[in-house]
């Protein structure tokens, strides 16, 4: 772990990994989309609208995966004071927020033809919406601090508090929803997804993950460069 704590080393390694991540993303998404649009069969119940699933489900998974990553990075920043962790957490937030937004938007576009409504207060949708607010609140908090080091620590605390809250929100919204009987039940592909649908789905998920890695690296590098800039500018002002 400590081998990777050095920002300079990170800059060196990430410079190598970045093009790989970027190209893998392009290739995986291209293949995934091709399979999703041309090879996967239309769904028995949902027809061609099921194609939306191939971006909706990966977005939703990434939204949760990125938040988990943020929480882990925040914990590492607070407990072990690992210097790169809080940079990783802050860099992840906008990416996670984008995925959450995509999940909500594509879900809405899928929901309209399937359920007849752009939005329903289904447990999953509601939890996703609250997740978006958690991301936005985090980003607002980071932004509000002039001193980036303090902003990082504050955001880390918030990320962890939010992370504890995610299962609570999920549970309470589930409870709330079952109490008021959902309007309809959503079934995605049924109990066992056929390989012709599963394969493109998984490929898209991996593609989204490499996308996350690529963008994360870019944003982390930006933060490190900005920190160097700031210290240089401060030294320049001092002279």
């Amino acid at each position, binding site marked *: 772990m400590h081998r990777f704590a050095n920002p300079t080393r990170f800059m060196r390694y990430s410079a190598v990994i970045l093009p790989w991540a970027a190209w893998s993303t392009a290739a995986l998404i291209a293949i995934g*989309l091709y399979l999703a*649009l041309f090879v996967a069969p*239309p769904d028995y119940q949902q*027809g*061609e*609208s099921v*194609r*939306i699933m191939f*971006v*909706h489900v990966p*977005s939703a998974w990434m939204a949760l995966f990125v938040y988990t990553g943020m929480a882990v990075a925040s914990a590492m920043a607070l407990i072990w004071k690992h210097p790169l962790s809080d940079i990783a957490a802050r860099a992840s937030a*906008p*990416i996670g927020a*984008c995925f959450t*937004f*995509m999940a909500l*938007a*594509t879900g809405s*576009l*899928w929901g*309209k*033809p399937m359920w007849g409504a752009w939005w329903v207060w289904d447990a999953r949708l509601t939890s996703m919406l609250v997740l978006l607010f958690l991301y936005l609140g985090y980003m607002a908090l980071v932004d509000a601090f002039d001193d980036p080091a303090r902003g990082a620590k504050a955001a880390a605390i918030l990320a962890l508090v939010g992370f504890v809250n995610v299962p609570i929100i999920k549970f309470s919204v589930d409870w709330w929803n079952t109490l008021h009987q959902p309007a309809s039940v959503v079934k995605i592909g049924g109990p066992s997804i056929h390989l012709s649908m599963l394969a493109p789905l998984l490929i898209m998920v991996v593609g989204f993950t490499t*996308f996350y890695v*690529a*963008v994360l690296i*870019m*944003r982390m*590098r*930006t933060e490190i*460069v*900005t920190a*160097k*800039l700031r210290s*240089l*500018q401060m030294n*320049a002002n001092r002279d």
Partner: protein
Amino acid sequence: MNEFFSMGGYAAFVWPALGLSALVMAALYIQSLWTLRAREAELEALQGEKTDETQA
């Protein structure tokens, strides 16, 4: 071809969904890349100045 574009009648939903996703991801990627390049350029410039100063 037409059948493909009409997506069994769901075209109004499927294509905006895919398009929106592509747009968001592309925008995020491009913004991240541009910001990185801009900061790197600034750093180069500032470091160039410094070496000029120390040489002068």
